[in-house]
C-alpha cells in the first residue's frame, strides 16, 4: 500500500470522511436536488429560481441497475496494468428521487447484485498519480 496522501479525484464532489456523502445543491425555490452541483439555473420547467444551497446527499440508496466494464475505457480514464474489470451500479436515492452512477467497490461482481438491493457510498482509489492517490465515490452493498 502506498503512503502517498489521498485526494479527491474530482474536487468538491464529495466529503472525505469515514461516512462520505456526495455534495450536491438544492434549489431554494422548488426543492429540486442537483448532482453534480447546479447553482445558476433550476432545471425544473416550473421554477426560475437562482438561489441554491449546498447539501450533502443521502449516502445510502437502492440499486436501479448494474453492469461491469470488461474492456479498458479510453482516456481520461486511467487504467491499472493489467486492466481489471470493475462493476458499475446506478443507485436510486429516495429522498432526492434521483439516480447516481458510480463504480462498485473492488471484489463485488454483477452476480452479487440485484435490482432493489441496499447500497452505501464509500471512497476507494480511482488511480494513483506521482503525488497522491486519487479517490472517488463508489457504491458498496450494505452488509446484511
Amino acid at each position, binding site marked *: 500500500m502506498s503512503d502517498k496522501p489521498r485526494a479527491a*479525484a*474530482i*474536487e468538491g*464532489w464529495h466529503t472525505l470522511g469515514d461516512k462520505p456523502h456526495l455534495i450536491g445543491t438544492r*434549489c431554494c425555490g*422548488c*426543492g*429540486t*436536488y*442537483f*448532482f*453534480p452541483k447546479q447553482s445558476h439555473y433550476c*432545471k*425544473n*420547467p*416550473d*421554477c426560475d429560481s437562482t438561489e441554491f444551497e449546498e447539501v450533502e446527499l443521502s449516502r445510502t440508496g437502492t440499486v*436501479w*441497475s*448494474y*453492469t*461491469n*466494464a*470488461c*474492456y479498458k*475505457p*479510453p*482516456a*481520461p*480514464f486511467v487504467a491499472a496494468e493489467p486492466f481489471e474489470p*470493475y462493476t*458499475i451500479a*446506478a443507485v*436510486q436515492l429516495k*429522498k*432526492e*428521487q*434521483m*439516480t*447516481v*452512477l*458510480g*463504480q462498485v467497490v473492488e471484489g463485488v461482481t*454483477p452476480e452479487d447484485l*440485484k*435490482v*432493489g438491493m441496499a447500497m452505501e457510498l464509500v471512497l476507494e482509489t*480511482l488511480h494513483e498519480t506521482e503525488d497522491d492517490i486519487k479517490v*472517488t465515490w463508489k457504491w458498496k452493498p450494505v452488509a446484511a
Partner: protein
Amino acid sequence: MSNEIAILGAGMHPWGKWGHNFVEYGVAAAREALRDAGVPWRDVRFVSGGATVRCGYPGYVAGATFAQALGWQGAEVNTSYAACASGSQALAAARNKILAGECEVALVVGADTTPKGFLAPAGGYRPEDPDWVRFYLGITNPTYFALYARRRMDLYGDTQADFAKVKVKNAAAGSKNPRARYKKCFTEEDVAASAMVADPLRLMDICATSDGGAALIVSSVDYARRIGKGDAPRVAAISTVTPSFASGVVEMPDIATDSAAAQGIEAQSFRASLPIKAYEEAGIGPEDVDVAEVYDLSTALELDWIEDLRLCERGEAASLLRKGDTSIGGRIPVNPSGGLACFGEAVPAQALAQVCELTWQLRGQSGDRQVQGARVGITANQGLFGHGSSVIVKA
C-alpha cells in the same frame, strides 16, 4: 391531411467501412434518390443536410457541401445537427419549407465517415463536461445500454438468450438487404460465444459504427400529383420532442438523473415521449402500425423501444420476440432492414436510412425482406443530449 408531404425518392450508399470522404456517400445516395423520384436536380429548391460534429466542425456544413457537390443551382440550403436525430431534423426542416409553400421539392441527405478508434472526449481536467466526467470514472457508452438490459432481466425476466434472439432475427433480415454492411446469419450460440463487453451484453449484442449515406426526395402532395405520383408514401408525422423533467432513466452522457423531489413532477422518459407526439400528429395509434424500424444500439434496446412505441405492454417485448411476432412474417415486424445490428451506426444518415427502409416497405419493393401488406410504418431513434426522433410514414 394538410400536414403531409410525399416521399418521391429514396436512396442509400451501402453501409460499410469504405474509407472514403463522406461527401461521396451523400452524393451517391442523393443521385439514387433523384433517379428513384424521376425528379431533375434543378427542380430541387431546398437542400437539407444532416451533419455530424467533430472537433467543432459540423461535417463541412453538410447542406451546402452536398449542394455544391451535386452542382450549385441556386437552391436554398439548411444544415441540421441533432446527434443521431440529425436526419429527422433535416427532414423536419424540409417539411416546414414545403408546408409553408416556400418550395415544392426538397432533397434531404445525411452521410458519415466513421473516424478510427474510440470516440473519446478532449483531455485535461474538465469536470464541467459530463462526457469528460463519465469517461474519467470509467463509464462508457455500453455501460448505459447494459444498465437498461440488466434492468429488463431483473424486472421482466428477460434472458441473455432473448437478447441473442434479437441479433439472430436482425441478422437474418439483414442478410437479405443488399445495402447492409453485415450480411452474415448468426445463431444464438454465436452470440453467446462472443466476448462480454458490459455484463449482460456481449460484443454481438452491441452495434458497430459505419460509413454510409442516405437521402430522400420529398415534395408537396400537389407536386407529387402533378408528376403522376399522387400515391407516393407520405410523411405523416415527425416527432423530435425532448423528454420531460424529471426523467428517472439515466441517459448518456450524464452521471446522474434529474431529481423528482419537487412537488407535482410528472416525468416522461426520453424514449417514451417521442412516439406519443408522433402518434398524435399522424392521428393514429400503435394498433395501426404494420412495421417499425427502431434504434437497436444494443439488442436489448430494441425490446425497450418496442414497449416505448406501445406495440405491446411494458415488459412483454421479449415474449413478442419469442413468438416470432417481431420477425418478418410475424404480427409486427421490427427492423426488417436488419437494423443497426446489420448496418452499424452512421450518425447523420441513420434516421434517414430508417425512413428509406419504410418507403421501400410501403411501396412493396423490399424483395425477400418484404413485410406483406405494410401500410403504416414508424421509426424510433435516439441520440445524445435529449435528441431523438420518431417518424411515421403512411402508404
